[in-house]
């Protein structure tokens, strides 16, 4: 049983990140302060998140007072299990990425650093807002701010080609945002003042067709960020961004926010029952399955490391969508946990790829020959990350896939395990060759500079976390328990005992 406590605590993670953004911009003439601010804010955000987690695990949900915005719509944050899972992950990975970014911008001598770190902080503030949003409006605001804040990050290099990719990125995400806007306005009209409710709040609010259209609007809205087929084209294009940005985009911010949004919409707006009734679960599952297979095959053919990783993300995120579509508690728990698992593994892969690029200037897989001996730690991280993606036991990807598969079986969808195994094999097929080429194939490594230890530390940290999670998924932040609680609440509803807050 859950109960709610009204407090302003959930505002703090957002406030910390925003304050950092302003501090960084103010201190733009003092290089040292930028990173200091970032570390402080990231550390503080992580600290507050970790301080809130025990409450959530106890079944206490922290809710902020509702800030009035417009009649029948307020801004409110609510630290429910799913939100806390995402928030904790985001702040943890922000800290990891910050260490990496600080070393990265120094090694490459990047320009516009103040803008870079400010935009980074705003993105994290928006992500925290998305994670803790108590109602669709708050979610939408976070979503739009996230789009805008990541734009300068994506086009950081400012060349014409990069700006073109940036336009594609914006065109997709902003137009998706407009559709989400439409969906939120519509939902507000059908169920005025409704908050996200575990199990959904739209049942019986409108006719079947109208609800189907609304679902499509919602899904296209959040699905654009989640890169569901056929809305994925922006993601590989956005690989023009600096590596820490790509890592952030994939592991926590944009794409993950989209996947998180799919879970929110299916579990907390529509609910599995309503989706099943309207036949939406099958449609969504089909889209997810198609995306998983298509993206895996496309990844096989990509020679550019980051683009291969991008397609891998497209495919992996559809696991989450798949879990949301199946809708059984196990599947939802698996999907929610995959947010975490994928976050740690993908960030390892990206940061490793970034180190390779910084140390050797190489971005293509076919050029990696002979590098394995020069950068052994990097390729160890990369290999472990790849194995985790494929769902090998003892790594966190296994747990999420296992639960997804069983969730599918419980829903009499026997094709789910088959799909997952196939995809796992494809994962191995596109990740292992990278390590194989680097370690076993001869080649001219060329000029290899020693990467700074601050560049190496973050991927090692991330893979260490991943290894720990694979064995003890509940250690530290209680990720698995949070995922399980979120899934249970969707099945049973989490109506609070205390009345009055809504």
């Amino acid at each position, binding site marked *: 049983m859950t109960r709610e406590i009204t407090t302003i605590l959930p505002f703090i993670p957002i406030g910390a990140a925003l304050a950092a953004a302003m501090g960084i911009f103010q201190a733009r003439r003092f290089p040292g302060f930028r990173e200091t601010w970032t570390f402080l804010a990231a550390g503080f955000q992580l600290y507050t998140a970790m301080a809130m987690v025990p409450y959530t695990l106890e079944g206490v949900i922290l809710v902020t007072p509702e*800030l*009035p*915005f*417009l*009649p029948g*719509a*307020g801004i409110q944050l609510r630290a429910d299990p799913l939100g806390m899972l995402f928030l904790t992950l985001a702040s943890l990975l922000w800290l990891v990425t910050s260490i990496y970014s600080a070393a990265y911008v120094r090694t490459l001598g990047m320009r516009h650093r103040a803008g870079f770190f400010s935009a980074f902080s705003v993105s994290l503030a928006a992500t925290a807002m998305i994670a803790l949003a108590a109602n669709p*409006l708050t979610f*939408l*605001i976070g979503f*739009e*701010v996230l789009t*805008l804040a990541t734009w*300068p990050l994506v*086009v950081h290099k*400012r060349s014409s080609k990069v*700006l073109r990719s*940036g*336009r594609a990125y*914006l*065109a997709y995400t*902003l*137009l998706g945002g*407009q*559709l989400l*806007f*439409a969906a*939120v*306005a*519509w939902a*507000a*009209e059908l169920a005025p003042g409704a908050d996200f409710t575990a199990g959904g709040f739209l049942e019986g609010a409108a006719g079947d067709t109208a609800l189907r259209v609304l679902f499509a609007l919602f899904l296209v809205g959040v699905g654009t960020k989640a890169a569901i087929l056929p809305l994925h084209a922006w993601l590989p294009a956005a690989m023009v961004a600096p590596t820490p940005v790509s890592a952030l985009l994939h592991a926590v911010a944009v794409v993950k926010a989209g996947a998180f949004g799919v879970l929110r919409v299916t579990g907390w707006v529509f609910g599995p029952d309503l989706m099943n009734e309207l036949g939406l679960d099958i449609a969504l599952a089909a889209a997810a399955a198609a995306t998983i297979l298509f993206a895996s095959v496309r990844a096989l053919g990509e020679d550019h490391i980051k683009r291969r990783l991008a397609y891998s993300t497209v495919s992996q995120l559809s696991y989450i969508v798949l879990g949301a579509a199946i809708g059984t508690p196990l599947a939802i728990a698996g999907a929610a946990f995959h947010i975490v698992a994928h976050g740690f593994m993908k960030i390892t892969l990206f940061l490793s790829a970034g180190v390779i690029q910084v140390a050797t200037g190489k971005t293509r897989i076919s050029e990696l020959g002979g590098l394995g001996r020069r950068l052994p730690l990097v390729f160890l991280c990369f290999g472990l990350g790849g194995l985790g993606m494929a769902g090998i036991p003892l790594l966190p990807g296994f747990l999420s896939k296992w639960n997804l598969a069983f969730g599918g079986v419980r829903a009499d969808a026997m094709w789910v395990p088959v799909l997952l195994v196939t995809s796992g094999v494809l994962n191995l097929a596109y990740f292992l060759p990278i390590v194989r080429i680097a370690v076993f194939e001869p080649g001219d490594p060329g000029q290899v500079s020693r990467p700074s230890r601050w560049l190496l530390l973050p991927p090692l940290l991330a893979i260490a976390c991943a290894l720990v999670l694979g064995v003890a998924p509940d250690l530290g932040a209680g990720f698995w328990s949070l995922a399980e609680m979120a899934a249970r609440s969707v099945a049973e509803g989490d109506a609070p005992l205390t009345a009055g807050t809504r």
Partner: protein
Amino acid sequence: MIEALAGLLVALPLAGAALMPMVAVLRRRGTRWLAFGLHLLTFAAAAAVFARTAATGEAIAHRMGGWPGPFGIELRLDGLSALIALLVTGLSCFVASAPVDASRGATRRASPVREGLVRGALSMLVAGLVGIAATRDVFNLFVFLEISSLAVYTLVASGGGRATVAAFRYLIAGTAAGSLYLLGVGFLYGLTGTLNMDDLAARLPGVEADAALTAAVALIAAGLAIKAALFPLHGWLPDAYVFAPAPAAGFISAVMAKVSAYALLRLLGETLRGIPAGAMALETMVWLGTLGVLVGGGMALAQRDAPRMLAWSSVSAMGAILLAVGIGSPLALAGALFHVVAHALAKGCLFLGVGGLAETLGAGDRRALRGLGRRAPWTAAALTLAAFSMIGLPPTAGFSSKLLLLRASLAEGGPAGVAAFVALLASSGLAALYFLRVLEGIWFRPRPEGRPAQRLPRALAAPVLSLAVLVLLGGVFSAVVEREFVSGAVEAVAGATADER
């Protein structure tokens, strides 16, 4: 005491209009500050009136010359009128604070005659617009409409060159609109024998609904629709907005068409609502507004020239406002009024900023704005916020107004509601495309070789920045804007229509 303020609201700027040319010729230096002070005073009067109507929920009435009832001309400011008056007078202060030729660089000063003419015209424009908002007499409305139009033609023409031609075209279209409206008023007068709005509303249901009544409604609606730039009667707008010189253009683009939209709301939504032809006119307005939203957005996307793009986006915004007026539910009216406020602030900011920059550069090509972010980050940030508001992105006022408009069109339902919903969404998408194209240039592209460095004249920077701050505050504190400003205005109209039914 406070009733006198209602009269003063019109009298003060009218006196200013007469005074300005004289002061400008006799004593050049003080003109700017005298004008600013006068506008500020008018604004203070409007604020006092607004505060009073908001506090008591009752209208403040002033009878011109002390004539009673339906015979004399009544100036009455209810929540809605007071909001419009507040907006008009407030924005005029921003524009009046700048030198007449602020956009042409610090070296050029306007000649005394020019200074007096432009400042006088601005005062006269304020008088006319406030008069439109305040009057309850349909003929008096015509007079104020023409006063404001004459002032606006002068302001547009003060741009020189092509602006003269634009002003002439505007004059022709505007006078045609005025004549149509006046003819409609003649029909109404012939049918009812009264010119007072309340009297009209009371008598019209008793009048047999024949061709004359339909003609009256059609003429009035058509006349005002031209002035409000309702598609397809928007032809005058782009040129007039583009060629007006920057400080004045900021004001014209912010309020001109919107006050006519207010007149449409007053007459069609309130006075003529009870009769079938009026309802039909409103329904037509929903459709035309929807089309205007789309066409304006599409045309804006096709423009290369930044001011012209902004002008077309105004056509789109007017479509959105008018379609909501046509829907007429309290939610829609709240959306329309919120949009009026949000759009006035954001468009004023953009026209002042882009117009000011473009004229210093000698060309309005939007590439002229490239590299602005490095060169003048605060100006660029202000323009960015205003652009976000135009697109409808959080955390700006445009986001809130768009949310209200979308909800209103959904609540309306039916083919018209759905069409409006889709069009509003599409226009946001289009706005995103054409504004972000400019923002990309501002922030991420280097200044083109051989172009002079852009710098917003200091006198324009202050209004641009303050308007941008207002756009932001209006978004963050939407609840306050809604509660304190919009809801009273909506009640003024919705309450009146509820009584009639």
